[in-house]
């Protein structure tokens, strides 16, 4: 089966058994990656199961382009039921693990059941072994990767840290020393299955249908990626992202209450100097020219490797108001090591500081930890406790929504989260109506999985370009204005679809839209030999999206759950470039109406009979 490996591996940890099925059973209708992942989850998990119980499954799924010459094809998609939101939980990671799985002969791995004792899985082509991991349990991510590579250096390792073992809803799955499927608490699901790691080694490779065509297309894609503005900036994006967030008015500080933090310029300057002093060299994921990663010449604690992701540092600095780069770096390393989602953890820390300041929680609750914005030392201590679920960390490990419910005492008023309780990413959404809608309607409640290149996001700094892009998508320049509610549903639909394509094909969402659908679908045809009309591709994406919806509806999702936390509707932004902006409930609901309509769903957000019929989902 060209492009695909042709098999999906099933591992039942309760029964200690493995089996495979043909990928072709699903690939025609669901493409791969996220698409097939969602289909497997929908078919295999009965409604309303405990996400941390043996009934839930954890799917690692590559796409038909993963592990080929196609640029930026290092991706693997993770699909499960999220313990944080109790809805569909999706996350996606780059690197080399997904490709290695493909080369071992599997398009995906599905983990069922729960092992009696801690185990890890070693895959070497057709050999799949479930091995004892009692000695690995308790080890951090860096140690685990090192141990599983001893004498087997070509192993690619997916693992959880202590945070996943302790089932923190903020825990992710790490891939080697750097890439993370960080969101939706996927690490907790792995931990709940007593599964510490999956080490993969594959020597079979990916078969290609038309090698000549693929060579040509890949050069074109690479050239297109090099024309992206991000390409030139990527190696310095680690600090330039701070500037860009500031220029576009996306930056907020602390628990979404300050927009003009006096140290914000200093923070950027410090980070810039720190990075310039210690930057060793840029790094990329498989076949990607973008070099989003940076190796640092400084060593972490216990000699841990320092390789930084550009999107994470601003969340640490902004949420916790840290202007000392030493602490930003230290907290980043800590999260990577413990197996935590940097963005989500930072958001929870900011909330705790807010609650502390407002007197909702006290020294007694926190067992002596001084939650105070700017206090890096205290936050580092608190994060260690969060990962181990010790003291107050046990409550914070639940994630924002469940944590404030547990705390009570009106804590809910201070919480900012998206649908299902997932933390927002590192930007303010109140002025960005499209992003806000995305966070409310999307599959797993985080806009990471749906928006990347929204023209709203760069409207302030590059208005001309933003207007042009908006015109191309919805036929109206004004649609780029972040604060407008009209046109946004259409735009959300477009970017959601793009993301689903990328996640299902197995390529990165960052260059996906700039490169353009045509080249990716030509690459798909060259790899697989399957000729797809754009119309068929669109239908596939609609099918995946509507199945995600059906899953969430089956878990009990209602129209009123497609929302963000109350605070974003009640409290206007107090200062800065977006002073006065707040989400208007009525206009927001109208955006939802239109979005549902465009998706072929009724006013309750349920797919209509006709839609189900068109998509073959009846």
């Amino acid at each position, binding site marked *: 089966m060209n492009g695909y490996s042709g098999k999906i591996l099933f591992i039942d940890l309760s029964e200690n058994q493995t089996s495979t099925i043909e990928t072709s059973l699903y690939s025609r209708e669901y493409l791969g990656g996220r698409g097939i992942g969602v289909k497997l989850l929908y078919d295999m998990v009965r409604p309303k199961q405990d996400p941390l119980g043996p009934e839930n499954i954890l799917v690692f799924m590559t796409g038909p382009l993963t*592990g*080929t*010459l196609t*640029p930026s094809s290092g991706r693997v998609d993770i699909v499960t039921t999220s313990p944080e939101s109790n809805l569909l939980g999706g996350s996606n990671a780059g690197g*080399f693990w997904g490709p290695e799985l493909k*080369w071992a002969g599997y398009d995906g791995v599905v983990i069922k059941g729960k092992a009696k004792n801690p185990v890890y899985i070693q895959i070497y082509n057709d050999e799949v072994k479930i091995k004892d991991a009692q000695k690995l349990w308790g080890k951090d991510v860096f140690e685990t990767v*090192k141990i599983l590579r001893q004498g087997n250096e070509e192993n690619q390792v997916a693992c959880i840290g202590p945070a996943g073992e302790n089932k923190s809803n903020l825990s992710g799955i790490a891939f*080697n*020393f*750097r890439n993370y499927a960080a969101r939706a608490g996927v690490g907790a699901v792995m931990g709940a299955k007593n599964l510490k790691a999956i080490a993969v080694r594959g*020597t*079979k*490779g*990916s*078969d*290609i249908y038309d*090698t000549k065509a*693929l*060579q040509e297309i*890949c*050069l074109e894609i*690479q050239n297109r990626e*090099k024309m992206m503005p991000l390409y030139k900036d990527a190696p310095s994006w680690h600090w330039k992202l701070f500037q860009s967030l500031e220029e576009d008015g996306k930056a907020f500080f602390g628990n979404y209450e300050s927009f003009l933090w006096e140290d914000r310029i200093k923070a950027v300057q410090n980070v810039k100097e720190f990075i310039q002093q210690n930057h*060793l*060299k*840029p*790094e*990329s*994921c*498989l*076949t*990607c*020219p973008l*070099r989003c990663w940076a*190796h*640092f*010449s400084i060593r972490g604690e216990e*000699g841990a*490797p320092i*390789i930084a992701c550009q999107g994470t540092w601003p969340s640490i600095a902004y949420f916790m108001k840290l202007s000392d780069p030493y602490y930003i770096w230290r907290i980043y390393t800590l999260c990577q090591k413990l197996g935590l989602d940097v963005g989500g953890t930072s958001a929870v820390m900011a909330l705790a500081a807010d609650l502390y300041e407002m007197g909702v929680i006290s020294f007694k609750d926190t067992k002596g930890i001084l939650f105070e914005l700017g206090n890096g030392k205290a936050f580092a201590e608190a994060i260690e406790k969060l990962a181990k679920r010790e003291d107050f960390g046990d409550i914070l490990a639940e994630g924002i929504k469940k944590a404030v419910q547990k705390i009570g005492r009106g804590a809910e008023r201070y919480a900012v989260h998206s649908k299902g309780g997932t933390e927002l990413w590192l930007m303010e959404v109140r002025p960005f109506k499209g992003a806000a809608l995305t966070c409310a309607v999307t599959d797993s409640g985080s806009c990471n999985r749906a928006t990347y290149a929204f023209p709203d996001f760069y409207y302030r700094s590059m208005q001309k370009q933003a207007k042009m892009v908006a015109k191309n998508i919805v036929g109206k320049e004004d649609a780029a204005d972040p604060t407008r509610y009209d046109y946004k549903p259409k735009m959300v639909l477009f970017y959601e679809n793009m993301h689903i394509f990328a996640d299902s094909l197995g390529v990165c969402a960052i260059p996906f839209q700039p490169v353009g659908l045509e080249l990716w679908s030509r690459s798909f045809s060259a790899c697989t030999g399957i000729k797809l009309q754009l119309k068929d591709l669109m239908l596939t994406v609609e099918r995946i999206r509507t199945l995600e919806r059906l899953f969430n509806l089956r878990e009990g999702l209602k129209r009123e759950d497609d929302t963000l936390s109350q605070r974003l509707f009640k409290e206007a932004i107090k200062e800065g470039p977006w002073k006065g902006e707040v989400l208007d409930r009525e206009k927001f609901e109208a955006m939802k109406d239109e979005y549902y309509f465009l998706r072929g769903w009724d006013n309750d957000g349920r797919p209509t009979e006709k839609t189900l019929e068109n998509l073959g989902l009846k």
Partner: protein
Amino acid sequence: MKRVLLVNWEKCIGCRTCEMICSLLNEERCNPTEARITVIKFEEKGADFPVYCQNCEAPACEAICPAKAIYKDDITEAVLVDIRRCIGCRMCILACPIGGLSFHPARKEIIKCDLCKGDPACVKYCPEGALEVVSLDTIGVKRRRENIRKFSSYLDMMTGGKE
């Protein structure tokens, strides 16, 4: 003049595009195991080294081959393996000081870089220009120039100007 493949490992971003294009071109499949080039990654240290056959002047593999299957191409001077003569003893792999040769697991044959008949595809596809084809008479000065750039701040200090 003989031209060789030269790597500037400091430029390598570890994306392994070279492995993908090499195996695709030679084996019609994307498979690092079947590629003639491998990026050896030291993820903890932040270093990536693309490793391939250096096409030596006095190849150890040629010297050790009991079947006299290894020879030099008349035009490109690349070290090649005559598969019809090769007995599959893998002595060449043992003898090579850098690991330039490998063994195709399915075909059971020695595989190695043949410089794509003088125009290596990995050079064309490397997004960072970390791989280059360099003529033998410039290879020394090229490396010297690249390496001395590390001291360019000293040069700026001495001359009072940026390069």
